[in-house]
């Protein structure tokens, strides 16, 4: 029997007080594609970063092709034939593709011969794997998909026998993802070993041979893909039975709260992010926006939340909003009755170094209720209110003095939600409400959102989790490339149809 291409034995890694990996052991056979799944923060990226020498494990052993191979640094990993495409690319933005490729594996002290050799080799690889990129283009001018190709080429140029890809499809269109999978299959056919980290069970089922599940820093199980199914994988991931549908009464939509017409956003780099969005949300209704990350959902939330400027017309309760950013910002939006749960709670929704009580007035600090007098804030009142809110939202521990960074992800999200929902807004913008949140908290959060809807409020929900969209929304709009591809009712559609729309396939063509 052949030795496994990779064998990890008792790997542990702590970042200060956070135990990211706990005693992990795993074997991957050569010539296979091995999937790894797990919730956010489960420790997947950490484990792979250890394998490719980016982090150093606190304990444990690594065997490559059966021989003990210590990997103290990236150099050792490269020597061992391991290449990794990171979740966040490791490219020098203002270098050319060629320069990025040769970085670290130059031939001799002068660049010219190295570049010439790499150019030839790149041509060769491009032909062989259909990985075409302009060798002289600067990385910053390339699309994300092409940048990923450069990362793969980098690994292949270094003669990697083991290729690790960390959430490679998160940034890709379905078509690009399909092409990536074709390349992976070809590499597997050549006998290379591939580790694929993804959140998408569909991809796992589609391409992997075996799959490992991680939870809370530990490896819970490894199974043959053909012996399992998505439902079972999901259960292994979160550690208990997953509730797929939310209990909710049919919606009782009222008048239009939000009317958006021909909304356009161009970002700082001059790229059109929203290309004429039109939609509406009524009182007592949840409109879910589905789509692959990076298709403009974030910009939609930001322009509605007053963070970025745009053009077009947006009516809130029939009154026009200023989109130019000149007389409006997040604060004036709040005053108009728009609350906003941002997609990235750690960078936007919360100040991680602030205590919980300081965070519960974030964005609302000018509310007269929080002022002791004309000059000073009434911190006592704020603390008292925070304690009450934490109670109601079951934030644990219910300590208003604790800094936000010291709460777990789920509890951080509850603090944000408590702040925004309890404002009783006419419209709630909510992005990725349950990202990285455990199942118990998910149920709680979903319940609160439905309650808000039932109280006659309008909710615009953005989520990359199709399941969440399907179970929460009363109507679903699908975004692709800055446009709305179509609208569906949850009862009359399924993941397959939505998936096609998300891939930019119009109904006529479908």
């Amino acid at each position, binding site marked *: 029997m052949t030795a496994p291409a990779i064998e990890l034995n008792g790997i542990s890694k702590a*970042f*200060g007080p956070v135990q990211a990996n706990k005693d992990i052991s795993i074997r991957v056979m050569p010539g296979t594609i091995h999937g790894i799944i797990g919730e956010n923060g489960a420790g997947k990226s950490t484990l792979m970063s250890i394998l*490719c*020498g*980016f*982090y150093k494990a606190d304990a444990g052993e690594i065997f490559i092709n059966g021989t003990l191979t210590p990997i103290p*640094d*990236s*150099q050792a*990993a*490269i020597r061992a034939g391991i290449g*990794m495409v*990171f979740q966040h690319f*490791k*490219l*020098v*933005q*203002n*270098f050319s593709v060629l*320069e*990025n490729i*040769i*970085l*670290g*594996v*130059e031939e*001799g*002290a*002068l*660049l*010219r011969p*190295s570049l010439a050799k790499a150019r030839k080799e790149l041509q060769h690889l491009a032909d062989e794997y259909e990985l075409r990129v302009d060798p002289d283009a600067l990385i910053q001018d390339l699309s994300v998909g092409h940048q990923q190709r450069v990362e793969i080429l*980098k690994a292949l140029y270094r003669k990697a026998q083991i290729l690790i890809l960390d959430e490679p499809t998160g940034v890709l269109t379905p078509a690009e993802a399909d092409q990536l999978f074709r390349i992976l299959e070809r590499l597997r056919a050549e006998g290379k070993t591939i580790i694929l980290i993804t959140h998408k069970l569909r991809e796992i089922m589609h391409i992997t041979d075996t799959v490992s599940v991680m939870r809370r820093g530990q490896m819970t199980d490894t199974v043959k893909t053909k012996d399992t199914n998505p439902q079972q994988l999901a259960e292994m991931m979160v550690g208990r039975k997953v509730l797929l549908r939310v209990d909710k009464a049919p919606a009782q939509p009222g008048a239009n709260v939000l009317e958006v017409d021909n909304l356009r956003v161009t970002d700082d780099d001059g790229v059109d992010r929203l290309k004429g969005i039109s939609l509406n949300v009524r009182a007592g209704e949840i409109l879910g926006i589905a789509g692959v990350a990076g298709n403009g959902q974030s910009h939609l939330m930001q322009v509605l939340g007053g963070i970025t400027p745009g053009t077009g017309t947006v009516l809130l309760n029939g009154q026009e909003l200023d989109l130019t950013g000149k007389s409006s910002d997040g604060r004036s939006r709040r005053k108009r009755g728009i609350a906003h749960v941002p997609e990235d709670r750690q960078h936007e929704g919360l100040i991680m170094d602030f205590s919980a009580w300081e965070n519960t007035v974030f964005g609302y600090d000018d509310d007269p209720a929080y002022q002791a007098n004309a000059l000073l804030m009434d911190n006592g009142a704020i603390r008292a209110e925070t304690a009450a809110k934490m109670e109601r939202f079951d934030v644990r521990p219910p300590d208003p003095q604790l800094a936000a960074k010291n709460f777990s992800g789920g509890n951080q999200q509850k603090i944000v939600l408590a702040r925004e929902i309890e404002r009783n807004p006419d419209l709630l913008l909510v992005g990725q409400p349950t990202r990285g949140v455990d199942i118990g908290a998910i149920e709680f959060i979903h319940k609160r959102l439905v309650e808000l809807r039932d109280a006659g409020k309008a909710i615009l929900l953005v989520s990359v989790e199709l399941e969440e969209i399907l179970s929460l929304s009363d109507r679903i709009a699908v975004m692709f490339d800055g446009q709305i591809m179509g609208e569906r009712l949850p009862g009359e559609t399924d993941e397959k149809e939505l998936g096609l729309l998300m891939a930019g396939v119009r109904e006529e063509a479908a």
Partner: protein
Amino acid sequence: MDYATLLQVADSTVRLSVPLLLACLAGLYSERAGIFDIGLEGKMLMAAFTSAALAAVSGSVWIGLLAGIASSMLLAGLHGLASITFRGNQLISGVAINFLASGLTVVIAQAWFEQGGRTPSLQGAARFEPITLPLAETLQGVPVFGPLYAELISGQTALAYVGFAMVPLTWWLLFRTRFGLRLRAVGEAPEAVDTAGVSVIRMRFAAVAIAGVLCGLAGAYLATALQAGFVREMTAGRGFIALAALIFAKWRPWYALSATLLFGLLQAVALRFQNIDIGTFTVPVQFMDALPYILTVVILAGFVGKAIPPRAGGEPYVKER
């Protein structure tokens, strides 16, 4: 202004530009590798002192030069330790180094030479003498070019020639060699360098060390070539002008040459023509003194071509929080 005066101003410009150029290139290496260096001034000052002190004691300018470089590298190492190894704030470290040099030079000089914080005057072999290039005498008579060659090109000190030679050398090193590729990469995207199997720490220390050497040359030039000995605060803000020139030059070697020559020219002009009378009103000498800084602010404001620093500049490279 006649040709001879022009040549004289040019000559003065060259002399005054050399320390700026050397320090500017020092900053260029460091900042290209992602380590901001506002401690150029301190390193120069320290080198000026040690080079003068050792040259005075030993009687040999070369020993002085080596000592100057060594002391500047010591401070550079401290900067590296603080900002690379211990991921401290690079700006604060630079500020500390400037103060350290400003204080230590005088304290040591006073204890050593008891001349109020200066070194004895350097004589003969303890100084860099001007080098007369071949044919300087012979060509003197050739119109226009002759005097130019004899007075401007010939007759500078060894360190001046080294300074100017550093410009093409730096360009070649940065853009044509493996070392340069890695050095630039480490200032733009250290994680890319790290995952490519190259030590970020080592690259950054190398860059900081080169900056130390160049600041050492700059300081030694001040004390042993331009002048004959050390006096307190003799760098007189040149490190900051060099920093300004670096921004002005957008972190590029050839631009650095032009920027430092420009700032050197400003100094030379301010020296030569205290208050400049331009018809209706006089430009006060203080305005000329402030001009490099004003120009830098204008450049920084992005009104005249934006200066974009290396992307990872100023940030310690942290893998694990």
